[in-house]
């Protein structure tokens, strides 16, 4: 038990030194970190938002909106498929009410063929052979297509993958440092931006789906019907966008546009802030090859007519086409400010969000509060450490001193492990530290009390120390397992600050067993071997 070969001693010292060295970069001021090349390459732990200050946003995908989009897409597909195939199948009375897509097949003889064709529009999901849409016949004349649960889940998954990337791109464009963007659950994205004090710009940027369309205005539409929101055949109706100052951009009320023949923003390759002849901010966009051709044809065929620029289902403006635009470059106008034009440019550049995102949780911490918390936390930890160290030394003498050395090393090792894992230190995490200082010595208290007890029972020094470590180790192991159970639960179910606390707690439990048991046993063994004391004070 007390027999420590040299290689084992070297291993223990090397391991602990490694842990301590890993902790050092995180504790240096940033300027120093940058100056020493080795240090700048080493891993560091992060500071949570409650310590660094910044903004935290939790975004949730609007799945109802996504289901609506899927339904619309499927409607387009069905129309095209039935018309394009041979023989052409005549369908009518298409309805998307109630989350299903249903349509009427005019010729009953074609019903089976129609079902066949509708089936070709569905895809297998996963490995269970389930399909993303179920096709059924109702009343022998109507075909009903219902999205399956698995199909919706897959659509959500796909949309969230893209959405996370789009969010990342948009935030990167803001030029903030080290933002955290992670998926949470099936339909959430967590965004944390250290140092950002006013999340308003970020929110409005993330709130834009940036679905851009160019569509021809239907100049023949009946103004009364359009105002009432009734779309003429082949048209769509969109309201004018709010300009944020109580008025509307570009016009009032609704605008009717041709459903087909437009160009979508998907064909953009670049968008940036620019100024028009009146020195008003506009967004200048560039189309890719096919977009350029389509835009050229649209403008050539419709000179003198107005076309609408529609963003997120709202009309930004509806300027008249003065001349054909052949170079694939256009300007989006519509009473922008410099900021709002820049925001739109970023949103367009980063691609459209496949699903609308809503902010469901928002937290902002000022930099002053974070600094105060770090200072208070550091002072409290230092005082706690000193108090515990004095108390341990007064109670257990030399053995308390060994325990103290173990505790101090343990603090650094925890920080080192956090650095390797890239863990985040939060304010409750600092509390976790203070608690770890308290509980880490518990192991040594158990050991030392046991040694005292065995001495009282009349055992020799060596025997007492050996038994003390052996008997206490079992208890320490069991106590730590239960403690770790509550830590794991916190890590699984806790959010934000609670997680930060759990991380420190769990790492602390693991490292403290090593420092408080193995390391102190080594120190005691070395001392006993060299000093051969005839009596121990414990």
């Amino acid at each position, binding site marked *: 038990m007390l027999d420590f070969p040299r290689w084992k001693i070297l291993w223990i010292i090397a391991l602990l030194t490694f842990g301590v060295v890993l902790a050092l970069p995180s504790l240096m001021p940033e300027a120093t970190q940058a100056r020493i090349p080795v240090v700048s390459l080493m891993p560091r732990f992060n500071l949570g938002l409650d310590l660094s200050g910044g903004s935290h946003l*939790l975004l949730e995908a609007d799945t109802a909106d996504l289901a609506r989009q899927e339904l619309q897409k499927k409607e387009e597909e069905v129309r095209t498929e039935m018309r394009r195939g041979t023989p052409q199948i005549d369908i009518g009375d298409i309805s998307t009410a109630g989350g299903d897509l249903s349509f009427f097949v005019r010729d009953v003889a074609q019903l089976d063929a129609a079902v066949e064709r509708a089936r070709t529009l569905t895809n297998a999901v996963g490995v269970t052979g389930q399909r993303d849409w179920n096709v059924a016949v109702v009343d022998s004349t109507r075909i009903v297509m219902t999205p399956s649960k698995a199909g919706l889940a897959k659509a959500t998954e796909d949309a969230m993958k893209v959405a996370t990337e789009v969010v990342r791109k948009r935030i990167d464009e803001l030029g903030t440092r080290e933002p955290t963007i992670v998926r949470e659950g099936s339909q959430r994205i967590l965004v944390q931006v250290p140092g950002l004090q006013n999340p308003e710009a970020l*929110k*409005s940027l993330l*709130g834009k789906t940036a679905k851009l369309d160019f569509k021809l205005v239907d100049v023949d539409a009946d103004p009364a019907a359009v105002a009432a929101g009734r779309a003429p055949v082949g048209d769509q109706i969109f309201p004018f966008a709010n300009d944020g100052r109580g008025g509307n951009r570009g016009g009032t009320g609704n605008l009717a546009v041709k459903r087909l023949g437009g160009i979508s923003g998907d064909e953009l390759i670049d968008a940036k802030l620019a100024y028009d002849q009146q020195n008003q901010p506009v967004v200048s966009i560039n189309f890719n090859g096919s977009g350029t051709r389509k835009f050229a044809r649209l403008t050539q065929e419709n000179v003198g007519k107005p076309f609408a620029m529609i963003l997120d289902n709202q009309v930004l403006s509806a300027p008249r086409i003065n001349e054909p635009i052949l170079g694939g470059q256009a300007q989006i106008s519509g009473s922008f400010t410099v900021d709002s034009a820049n925001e739109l440019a970023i949103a367009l550049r980063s691609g459209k969000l496949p699903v609308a995102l*809503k*902010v*469901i*949780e*928002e*937290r*902002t*911490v*000022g930099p002053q*509060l974070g600094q*105060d*918390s770090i200072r*208070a936390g550091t002072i*409290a*930890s230092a*005082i*706690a450490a000193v*108090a*515990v160290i004095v*108390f341990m030394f007064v*109670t257990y003498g030399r053995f308390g001193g060994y325990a103290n050395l173990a505790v101090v090393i343990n603090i650094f090792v925890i920080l080192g492990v956090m650095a390797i894992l890239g863990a985040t230190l939060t*304010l*409750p995490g*600092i*509390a976790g530290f*203070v*608690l770890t200082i*308290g*509980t880490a*010595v*518990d192991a040594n*208290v*158990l050991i030392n009390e046991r040694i005292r007890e065995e*001495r*009282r*029972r*009349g055992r020799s020094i060596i025997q007492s120390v050996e038994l003390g470590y052996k008997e206490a180790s*079992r*208890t320490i192991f*069991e*106590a730590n397992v*239960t*403690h770790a*159970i*509550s830590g794991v*639960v*916190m890590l699984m*179910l*806790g*959010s934000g*600050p*609670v997680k930060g*606390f*759990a991380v420190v707690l769990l790492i602390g439990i693991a490292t403290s067993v090593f420092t408080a048991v193995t390391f102190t046993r080594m120190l005691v063994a070395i001392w006993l071997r060299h000093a051969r004391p005839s009596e121990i*004070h*414990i």
Partner: protein
Amino acid sequence: MRLLKLVPDNTNIGFVSLRYWAFGLTAFLSLAAVALVGVRGLNFGVDFVGGLMIEAKFEQPPELDAVRHNIDALHVGEASLQQFGSKNTVSIRLPLPHSTDEGATNTLIRKVQASLGAQYPGVVFNKADTVSGKVSDELIRNGIVAVILAMVAIALFGWFRFEWQFGVSTFVAILHDVLMTLGFFAITRLEVDLNIVAAVLTIVGYSINDKIVIDDRIRENLRKYRQMDIHALIDLSVNETLPRTVMTSLTILLALGSLLIFGGEVLRGFTAAMMLGVVVGTYSSIYVSSSLLITLGIGARRTVDTPAGPRGNAERVSGPRV
């Protein structure tokens, strides 16, 4: 050098004989805690009820009524104010605006900040939280599930590792600790937020730690002293581990005390809860879980147990020998 000994050698306190008094007190306190929580309720923070919270630090401690008046004039809903620490810091809670517009909450926060800034120059806004009802419902559900899951998992561990009686007694003792903590929050009206869930889980963890140490000793003594009366055996085990119990509780209280005094405002409720938990947990280790073992009939079968190991004939020695 004379070392400090908090608990004299061979202390022998008759804990077990006091157990019916202790059970009575425990039952009374637990019921009182439940009643308190039921009647007074808990002061849930925005984490758990949803809404908007702004933390403002004033240069001078402000009149709360004046601050309330200032905010009421904005007609943004009923504000609830709370001062903490040096009284300079006030947390202002407001209901969420009835608007789906992304900018609505920010507009509201800005309005409050501008209005307060005009009346109190030099005020600093440290923190702003907005939590929607959906998220707060989940947070509170996760919090409750976490505490229950931790308690059950630990009780199961006690059952597998020891005997079922240990699992049950530990579970009851932790339940008592959690109820005490909730009662404490009902009395003090300290805000219950996410951090408090962490505090409660830590109390559960600590309390368990304490009980395992005593349980472990009881198990060891059950094997060692096969003829000893169970009352005496539990008294012996508790007394043997008493120096450790006192020592560990004190070191943790020392560490937490420093955090309470110097750790800043944000962690104060968290630390207070944990200090209470340490005291309550220590009490319940001795009086609830250990004494309950007798009632549950631990050690009834031990004469037919597997034979004890070489440690079985270790005798108890009184008086320190040199």
